[in-house]
């Protein structure tokens, strides 16, 4: 217990790490305070919600390809149900899939393992965080059973539509939706406290700040951005709740201002994009270094530019509101800041590409997903320049071009990045190797189908097709066979992409049952998590590791081995 005395007084649970008494199923897996179990709880809940979210997209894409037809596994889609599916698809994919998997799941599992400590600083706060999150998940899904149906005013929930029942016609759905989102945010605030505190206080002996893997930096910076930006949203949510339930007028035309909500929402909503982006870039950095056997190019530069991304992300929000009735002179400023944020992101992307230079690259499945992420995310990134340009946004705002753009950023991050994390850490979490061949089939099938979903939508958007429209029959310019063929192509590609998840499921089940044993360090990586057993026991190490060098000492000249674990004395 001596080596973890940095936070020995933080929680009584810390004592129990020293002697691992056998635990019941409930205390081990359901009410656990172990950071790894909590990370897995978040991840599995996120995967479950991903299935729900994909099912929703399946239903409304089927409807758009073939309006008013009977949809297998659903039925006929009504306008009210269409709105609520579109709304909750967005809400779920951001708040209940991306956040729990990329931030909470990854952060909880990896931070203590990567910095060489036995658990988070506040294990019981961590458990509370997941419990609040679980409650919010249940609450969101209950919204679909509420009389009047689930909320259907878009994931941005703009008032007055979201504030008054006579406008949105979902008397309970809107309140339940708002409460669920607010609870979810509480959960991540609780978890975030742990991430930052643990990374600051519990690093292994010998590990300086710049010896931390870049992934830990990214999660810490993402958490700080989240904490700094979420306050106004919570305040806004309370005001909106009062508008909904007590009839106050914070966002009403008389006495209040509907546009105020948009500022509060996007002040959080845009930094949120970077909250999701940064952990993913961190994962890609780790994976690229391991599978190209190279040190990370410009480690400190990446960390410093990431801070710059964080700061800039706070002053770009109004680019969502260029045509929302803000002062036109303000738009030029936000257009400038938005385009400037491409600079630090470009530094990070270029540094990742430079890491490949003169490497010894091995395309194992995690590396395929990581490189796939870079290749696809580039298209999402550059198309953001169109939307950051205020004058072009006049045309593109709320068209399918926007939909295609942000799916080209979020699907590489959440799906490609998620699968990269999954395949990279599966051996550590389960002790079993995944099947490479099934993994490659899964990657290529999903990646190709993904492009055929969203490239057609760029062209729909260019032709002026707006989002969230249940029925295009009223618009002569949008009912042409060409426009319909774009919609149909996207839907068919979605079905193909869903079908290509079958090899993944088979792979996971097969590998769990009879995968080859992974050993502690199957990828020959340097970072500390690979020095623990697979799977790591409660407490992670019998004796906590000591660190002698940075995390990216690959292919060091003069050494026989091409890796040099952080804890190896020589």
């Amino acid at each position, binding site marked *: 217990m001596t080596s973890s005395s940095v936070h020995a007084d933080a929680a009584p649970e810390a004592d129990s790490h020293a002697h691992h008494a056998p635990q019941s199923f409930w205390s081990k897996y359901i009410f656990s305070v172990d950071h790894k179990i909590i990370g897995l709880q978040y991840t599995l809940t996120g995967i479950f919600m991903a299935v729900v979210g994909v099912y929703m997209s399946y239903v409304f894409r089927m409807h758009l390809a073939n309006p008013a037809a009977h949809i297998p596994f659903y039925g006929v889609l009504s306008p009210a149900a269409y709105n609520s599916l579109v709304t909750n698809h967005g809400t779920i994919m951001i708040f209940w899939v991306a956040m729990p998997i990329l931030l909470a799941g990854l952060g909880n599992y990896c931070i203590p393992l990567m910095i060489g400590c036995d658990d988070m600083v506040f294990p019981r706060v961590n458990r509370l965080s997941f419990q609040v999150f679980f409650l919010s998940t249940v609450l969101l899904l209950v919204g679909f059973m509420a009389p009047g149906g689930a909320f259907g005013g878009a994931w941005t929930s703009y008032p007055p539509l979201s504030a008054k029942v006579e406008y949105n016609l979902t008397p309970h759905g809107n309140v339940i939706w708002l409460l669920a989102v607010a609870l979810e945010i509480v959960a991540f605030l609780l978890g975030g406290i742990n991430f930052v505190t643990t990374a600051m206080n519990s690093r292994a002996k010998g590990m300086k700040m710049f010896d931390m893997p870049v992934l830990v930096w990214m999660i810490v910076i993402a958490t700080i951005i989240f904490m700094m930006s979420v306050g106004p949203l919570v305040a806004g949510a309370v005001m909106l709740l009062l508008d909904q339930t007590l009839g106050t007028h914070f966002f009403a035309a008389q006495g209040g201002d509907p546009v105020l909500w948009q500022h509060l929402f996007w002040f959080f909503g845009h930094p949120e994009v970077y909250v999701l982006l940064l952990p993913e870039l961190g994962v890609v950095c780790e994976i690229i270094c391991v599978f190209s056997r190279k040190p990370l190019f410009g480690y400190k530069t990446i960390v410093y530019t990431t801070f710059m991304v964080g700061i800039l992300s706070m002053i770009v929000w109004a680019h969502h509101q260029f045509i929302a009735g803000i002062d036109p002179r303000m738009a030029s400023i936000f257009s400038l800041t938005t385009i400037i944020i491409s600079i630090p992101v470009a530094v990070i992307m270029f540094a990742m590409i*430079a890491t490949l230079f003169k490497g010894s690259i091995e395309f194992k499945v995690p590396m395929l997903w990581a490189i796939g992420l870079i290749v696809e995310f580039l298209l999402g990134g550059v198309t953001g320049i169109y939307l950051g340009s205020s004058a072009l946004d006049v045309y593109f705002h709320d068209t399918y071009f926007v939909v295609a753009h942000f799916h080209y950023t979020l699907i590489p991050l959440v799906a490609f990045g998620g699968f990269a994390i999954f395949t990279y850490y599966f051996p550590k979490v389960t002790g079993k190797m995944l099947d490479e061949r099934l993994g490659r089939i899964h990657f290529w099938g999903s990646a190709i189908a993904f492009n055929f979903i969203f490239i057609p939508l760029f062209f729909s958007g260019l032709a002026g097709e707006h989002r969230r429209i249940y029925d295009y029959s009223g618009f002569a310019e949008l009912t042409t066979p060409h426009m319909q063929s774009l919609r149909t192509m996207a839907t068919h590609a979605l079905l193909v992409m869903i079908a290509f998840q079958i090899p993944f499921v088979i792979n996971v089940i097969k590998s769990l049952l009879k995968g080859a044993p992974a050993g502690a360090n199957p990828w020959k990586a340097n970072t500390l998590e690979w020095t623990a057993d697979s799977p790591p026991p409660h407490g992670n190490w019998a004796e906590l590791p000591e660190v002698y060098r940075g995390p990216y000492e690959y292919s060091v000249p003069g050494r026989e081995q091409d890796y040099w674990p952080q804890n190896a004395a020589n």
Partner: protein
Amino acid sequence: MNHWIKGVSSYAADIDGLFWLVTALIGFWFIVAQGIVIYFALKYRRKEGVKAAYITGKTWRELSWVFIPVVLVVMCDGWIDVATASVWHNVKETLPTADHKVGVMGQQWAWTFSHEGPDGKLGTPDDIVTVDDLHVVVNKVIHVDLQSKDVLHSFSIPVMRFKQDTIPGRSITGWFKPTVPGVYDVQCAEICGLGHGYMAARITVQTQADYDAWMKAVAAGATALPGAPAASPAPAAAPATQVPQK
């Protein structure tokens, strides 16, 4: 962007020109970056006996591989910013003198348009009010006075490259100058509830003579509201009220 959609307003060409400028600049960077990733990925595949180079990117000399391209990116960003600010200034920050004014009222789920009556003034009893059917004269500067009765809507005419949210409690003035006669779609671009997808309207751009004839016809049969027959041949889509049953 004429390949995908017509541009029929005075500033459509400016916005489309900006689109092609951005496409050229980011297209260059996109192709270069993709090319390098794919080239590295293929060229530096693992070979037996070949060790990776130990390059940490700590020296300025090595960092220049990243920073020189970044300086070039900054220059492209600057170009895009200046071009954007100039187009934005013409489209949204300046307001040319109006030839005609039109009142636009968004509500769940229809657009109500008020045209100047014979007296040439908006807001007088002889205004011609239509639902989902807007008429304007070609080559005239049109001011639209945008309001909303209930929730946010967004008045969008894709072919004009015009879009502006309407906000309850506010009156926002926008402008466009149509250049080609015809009948075009008007969409609501901001989700506004159950009938959002049905909030379709048509804009008829016509010559002064056709417009006068339309006005006379409407004034003569003042009961011919809403959706008076358009003077130009309209495509099959029905412009009239399509509000779904609650």
